[in-house]
């Protein structure tokens, strides 16, 4: 069962699944074995973006490099370009996103996953990602900066 860290900033509480790694731009990466890495938006990213209206992931078979756009998400507030947290080939796209993209908001670490990627060099990419505590600290900085601007 997935465990979570929590961070509360003002009236907002953000959760961080402890079983995965994070791209600084708010994309998680969960290795599943046999070179597959499942990816999705962090709780902070989905809360910051707001209600998801449309989610489009690059089709199966698309090659992506670390940091390339792997998905685009349109919310009522903004458009989010989702960078790939791992290099490889898109092996599976969450079929729920077409009819129910709100699943990203409802369950960002579970049913709201975006894609599975057949990684070319997970160990190398993992070294470029943040562990949950490091990502939490990054979110703390960003969220507190946002609060100061208000």
């Amino acid at each position, binding site marked *: 069962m997935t465990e979570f860290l929590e961070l509360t900033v003002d009236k907002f509480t953000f959760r961080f699944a402890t079983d995965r790694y994070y791209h600084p731009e708010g994309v998680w990466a969960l290795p599943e074995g046999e070179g597959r890495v499942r990816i999705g938006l962090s709780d902070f990213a989905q809360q910051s973006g*707001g*209600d998801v*209206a*449309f989610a489009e992931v690059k089709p199966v078979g698309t090659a992506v490099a670390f940091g390339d756009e792997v998905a685009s998400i*349109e919310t*009522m*507030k903004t458009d989010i370009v989702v960078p790939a947290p791992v290099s490889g080939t898109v092996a599976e796209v969450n079929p729920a996103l077409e009819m129910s993209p*709100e699943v990203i*908001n409802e369950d960002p670490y579970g049913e709201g996953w975006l894609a599975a990627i057949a990684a070319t060099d997970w160990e190398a990419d993992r070294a470029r990602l943040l562990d949950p505590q490091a990502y939490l600290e990054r979110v703390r900085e960003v969220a507190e900066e946002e609060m100061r601007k208000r």
Partner: protein
Amino acid sequence: MRGKVVIVPCSGIGKTFGTVSREAAYAVVEDLRPDAAELVALSLLVLGDEAARAAVAEHPTVTIDGCRLACATKMVQESGLPVARSFTVLDAFRKYRDLKPEGISSLNPEGQKLARVLAEEVAEAVDEVVKGET
């Protein structure tokens, strides 16, 4: 109360989609179905205002929520009152992707169009609810 159907829109102040929900509600009660629909403020329901509660209790209610939090629908239901039909701006935007609303105090042209098409959907729902009542 002259209206047969109560419209309760989102009260999300400072939110674009809250503005769209309220603009749609105004269009229904002032323009599209002035004789069949009446507004009730969500804040009055939350405060337990007797007249607002009575209006919702005695008439079919249509809610227009801005986002998935669905505050209007939830607050009507948590007041122990029924919701005849519910709409969200988010669902309307999914149907009309080119109408992306922007602005808060003043919507952009796309937001105004989105409010209008949503209002037309709500007006049709008002007709159906009224028909079902008679």
